[in-house]
């Protein structure tokens, strides 16, 4: 810990510093020692980028070690190896599995400078005051806990957050317009026999089952009271429909990793599949047409956030808060939004994006010039409009969130049977 000697003069100085620190949260008191701090962060590949670590070193002075894993490994690590990380960048639905293990600690929202600017979906669940809350594990429902040592989730803003929201998006099906040659506007097209042997779905049960539910509802087979919390009968019904389709040869393959989904689409093995937005971009950057198709039934959404390891304390904990405040202050937000994701605090990200970029990515306006991603590759030509329109159009059309069900264990077993069928 830093040694601070108290004299009248230093107290005066410290008082001044405290005022400054409150106005501008930045490392002040322990500026020297923070250089030796190393925080270990892990999460999925979407947001665990080396560029972020480099920028942290530059802006905050300490080291951030990034490890990118797939969703299953992320869950495993957060649940079983609490001492192997300081910061867990996990998805909200994973939080439901990880939080009860006690491996994470709650975060005091009074220490989060931009807390008030975080979008509504992560606070009271509502994007705008009029919007209804979508089905599934909505982030706000697992976003707060009772107190510093809370083990239960609470629905209201309690002042103690489980995860600080960082990144989220509205997912839909990806298609190859050149190989399909007609408009696609419903989830049910995934099981359309027209695409037999050319469809794919992801093999991550918690997400895949939600896509399946969207398809089943779209086919008119069944309407779920809550897609994110199915009964055993509903799980059997959903997987039954898909098992039948699988046996009839509907699917070409299932994918588990980002790159697999890109390969399947780019090689033309698959023409319609569940997909993630940066994977679409990756296909397009190879010069192959690929569309992130908005569908009538709406989107299946997901959100990610940063959680702090329970064993974090002292200067490392201070550094972690510093990091969180920096995370929400705009640079990362801009970086993520220029890849097609959304930032938890859009208004700070705006300052790190050009007006044209902001118009294209957030407001759904036509691009005035070429739109490049953060790595400098051109993603869209002038005149292009984002699939699905503006932030409020897209996030306002979310039908469900990725979820963990009460019957999760049963679902997982049935999912295994589906894969083995």
């Amino acid at each position, binding site marked *: 810990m830093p040694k601070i000697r108290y004299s009248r003069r230093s107290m005066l100085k410290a008082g001044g510093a405290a005022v400054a620190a409150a106005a501008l949260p930045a490392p002040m008191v322990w500026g020297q020692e923070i250089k030796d701090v190393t925080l270990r962060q892990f999460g999925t590949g979407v947001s665990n980028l080396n560029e972020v670590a480099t920028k942290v070193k530059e802006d905050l002075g300490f080291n951030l070690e990034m490890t990118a894993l797939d969703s299953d490994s992320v869950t495993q690590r957060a649940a079983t190896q609490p001492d192997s990380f300081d910061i867990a960048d996990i998805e909200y639905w994973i939080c439901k599995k990880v939080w009860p293990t006690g491996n994470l600690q709650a975060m005091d929202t009074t220490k989060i400078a931009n807390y008030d600017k975080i979008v509504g979906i992560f606070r009271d669940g509502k994007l705008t005051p009029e919007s209804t809350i979508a089905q599934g594990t909505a982030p706000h429902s697992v976003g707060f806990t009772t107190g510093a040592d809370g083990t239960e989730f609470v629905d209201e803003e309690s002042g103690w957050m489980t995860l600080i929201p960082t990144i989220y998006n509205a997912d839909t099906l990806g298609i190859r317009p050149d190989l399909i040659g007609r408009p696609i506007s419903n989830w049910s097209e995934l099981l359309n026999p027209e695409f037999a042997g050319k469809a794919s779905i992801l093999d991550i049960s918690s997400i895949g089952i939600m896509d399946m539910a969207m398809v089943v509802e779209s086919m008119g087979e069944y309407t779920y009271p809550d897609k994110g919390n199915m009964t055993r009968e509903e799980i059997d019904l959903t997987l039954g429909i898909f098992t039948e389709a699988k046996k009839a040869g509907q699917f070409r393959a299932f994918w588990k990793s980002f790159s697999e989904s890109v390969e399947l689409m780019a090689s*033309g093995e698959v023409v319609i599949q569940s997909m993630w937005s940066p994977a679409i971009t990756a296909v397009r950057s190879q010069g192959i047409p690929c569309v992130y198709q908005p569908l009538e039934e709406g989107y299946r959404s997901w959100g990610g956030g940063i959680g702090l390891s329970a064993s974090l304390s002292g200067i490392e904990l201070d550094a972690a808060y510093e990091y969180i405040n920096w995370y929400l202050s705009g640079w990362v937000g801009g970086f993520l939004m220029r890849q097609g994701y959304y930032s938890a605090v859009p208004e700070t990200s705006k300052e790190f994006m050009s007006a044209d970029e902001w118009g294209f990515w957030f407001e759904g306006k036509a691009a005035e010039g070429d739109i490049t991603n953060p790595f400098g590759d051109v993603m869209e030509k002038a005149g292009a409009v984002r699939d699905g329109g503006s932030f409020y159009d897209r996030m306002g059309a979310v039908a469900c969130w990725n979820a963990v069900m009460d019957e*999760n264990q049963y679902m997982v077993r049935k999912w295994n049977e589906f894969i083995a069928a």
Partner: protein
Amino acid sequence: MASPLALILTAFLVAPIIMIVIVSFWGATEFSIYPAFQFDNYAFLFGSDVTYRVFFNTFKYAAITWAFTLVIGFTVAYFLAFHVRSLKWQIALFLLCTIPFWTSNIIRMISWIPFLGRNGLANATLVSWGVIDEPLDWLLFSDFSVILAFVHLYTLFMVVPIFNTMMRIDKSLIEAAVDAGATGWQTLRYVVIPLTKPGIMIGTIFVVTLVMGDFITVRFMSGSQSANVGRMIQNDIGLLQYPSAAATAVILLATVLIVIGILLRFVDIRKEL
């Protein structure tokens, strides 16, 4: 006094297996496993017809792969041992066989995917030759591609032990057979094959255990559409169902041991070596 080998085997082989057996009786919740003594995992395993189908699939892959690797491996070894005259060339050609093993398993496997794909090299060639009109879908993400990859990956494990035993066959025995009027086929049938049996058996054990324990080849080459026991265990682990994975592993281990036990009935490896 316990010998060092016994200690190492106990610590790194026997103890983990005992642990797996113990855990296979435990219970699991969403995020934790708790010690218990229950038969839930086994009950679920034996109660599901998927288990039987998956085990059948595992045996199917093992049997077909075994047949192909045996024929190819035996032919290659035979060529190396009896047709290549100089030792220098034998060694050179043998090393040639190992070249694919300089890269990782996964790379060798994945490189088949663009080759066999719908718009891949194989289909493009066949279409341009006029052999087929439409690209063949079953080349990739099918049992065919899984077995092809297995054969490609594991044939060397058959070649090496067979070549090894063939090299130790006394050449005068073959001369004697020829002198006694045996045809080439008869020499092979009554002299070479019986004397190569230990090598075949060792290769068989390698291939069968490798195929039965494999999960990554099945996942990649079938596009996750088929499953064998390894895949089932991997899925369970991925979903934090450790006790259930342990139970499946115990059954798989028992199955493999039984298979090896049966194989060893045919040949007394100790005596033959």
